[in-house]
């Protein structure tokens, strides 16, 4: 295996979490790469849903936007977006929802709305989009985020979507149907909620990464699980498949587009 980037390792680590019979609600970026990598390796039958309304899509190249034509052309079907959110997500038909965020706290709550006060933010972020209800309804949520103390924070500026709220069963007491953030895949390894407190703790490290490196990247005092696993580097097959996918994607998106004059 050649040396891989941390993004590649994160993508591979996330892909490995996906089962062949999973129904995944996919976001753009690393989650989309992870889901399609899973589909192209160990999970050929995985069902990918993008919120644009494309169900069971099998893109040959990664989409740049959530609504690329490639997603529609390779989908089992394309339905209006309100049906995606009511008949599929809210109906409890999604096994895995992928989310990212600008900020995440120790209970897996996410902020993608504002930095600073809501009414007069220092940074207005794009907003929650599909996240609040993905976080609510997916059987499990996987968060993918590169870790820095500015993004893994003690206190969110705004809670855009719910993780475990204040932990200790607070989420379940709201009646939230889904299981919440079961895994946070970062660029050093993985966090997962403690079974009782529901605080995110370190459960796995990329091979060769130290606990100290992980702690330095997290803005709260990071706890380490009783059992700490090691995440093996990408296999040659995983890495070849991912890189071929990324190469196809770059080539496809580099093709000049004809202005429709």
């Amino acid at each position, binding site marked *: 295996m050649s040396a891989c980037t941390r993004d590649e390792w994160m993508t591979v680590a996330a892909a490995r979490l996906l089962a062949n019979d999973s129904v995944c609600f996919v976001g*753009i*970026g690393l989650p989309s790469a992870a889901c399609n990598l899973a589909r192209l390796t160990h999970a050929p039958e995985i069902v990918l849903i993008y*919120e*644009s*309304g*494309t169900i069971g899509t099998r893109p040959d190249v990664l*989409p*740049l*936007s*959530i*609504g*690329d*034509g490639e*997603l*529609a*052309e390779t989908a089992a079907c*394309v339905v*209006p*977006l*309100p049906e995606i*959110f*009511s008949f599929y*997500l*809210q109906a409890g038909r999604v096994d895995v929802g992928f989310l990212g965020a600008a900020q995440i706290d120790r209970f897996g709550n996410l902020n993608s*709305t504002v930095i600073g006060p*809501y009414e*007069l*933010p*220092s*940074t*207005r*972020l*794009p*907003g*929650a*989009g*599909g*996240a*609040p*209800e993905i*976080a*609510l*309804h997916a059987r499990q949520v996987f968060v993918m985020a590169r870790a820095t103390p500015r993004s893994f924070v003690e206190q969110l500026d*705004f*809670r*855009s*979507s*719910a993780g475990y*709220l204040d932990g200790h069963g607070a*989420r379940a007491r*709201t*009646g*939230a*149907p889904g299981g919440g953030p079961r895994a946070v895949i970062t660029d050093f390894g993985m966090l997962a909620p403690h079974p009782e407190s529901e605080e995110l703790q370190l459960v796995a490290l990329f091979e060769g990464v130290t606990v100290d490196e992980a702690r330095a990247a997290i803005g709260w005092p990071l706890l380490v699980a009783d059992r700490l696993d090691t995440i093996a580097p990408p296999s040659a097959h995983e890495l070849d498949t991912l890189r071929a996918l990324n190469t196809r994607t770059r080539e496809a998106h580099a093709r*000049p*587009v*004809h*202005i*429709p*004059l």
Partner: protein
Amino acid sequence: MSCQHLQLAEAIELFVHDGASVALEGFTHLIPFAAGHEIIRQRKRDLHLIRMTPDLIYDQLIGMGCARILTFSWGGNPGVGSLHRLRDAVEHGWPRPLEIDEHSHAGMAAAFTAGASRLPFGVLRGYIGTDLPAHNPNIRRVACPFTGEALAAVPALNPDVTILHAQRADRAGNVAIDGIVGAAREAALAAKMLIVTVEEIVDALPPAMNAIVLPHWTVGAVVHCRGGAYPSYAQGHYARDNAFYQRWDAIARDRQRFLDWMDHHVLGTRDHRAFLASLQTEATA
């Protein structure tokens, strides 16, 4: 209502009034850029802009000072990053303050669906554990009269005008849409007035049966406008210009560069064809 065939400038002039609530829908696909540019050319003001995913065209409308309020659920440059004009309006009130009516996708989808159904509110199991309801009085609770469960409620969205872009219409004004539709159909049927720009006008639509068709009597005006979704795309006609979306990041980052660009390519062009030609010229220069 009977459907008229109009030029784009006429349609905008007739139906988009200062202060109106306007939804330009289309989810990444079929975003009505040409219509948005025409609204900018006609210097409409105080609009209540509605759209799940304010895209570049809303960044432009906001940066040109057309908007007073924005109802939305995700305001970014898809696959690229921020909408800098939207940010500047919210963060610094430039060129004017922008009021925000912020939802989740599921909330807006429920609101458009309620609007299309002419119900006063939509219901969803949503927003639980988020700070959005605390900052938006348009997110309330309603109790199920059978189970007692408290659910989220959002007021129906019924835009004064919805504008879509679609692949084709027939001469009667029936509109056919292929591919990703997002909440376009619901936004269309929720509107008091529906304008659709289309790639082509045909004698007869392809066989429909269960395809997505907006019947002519739900359509107020049809405008023939080739390339009307560019730099977004029209499935079967042309692809999304991802490079343009990436270039936009640098253009929109700077107020003056943004104004210059709008001046040259939008205000300085007569219509969408001229807009496209101005980009073509730039590309080959």
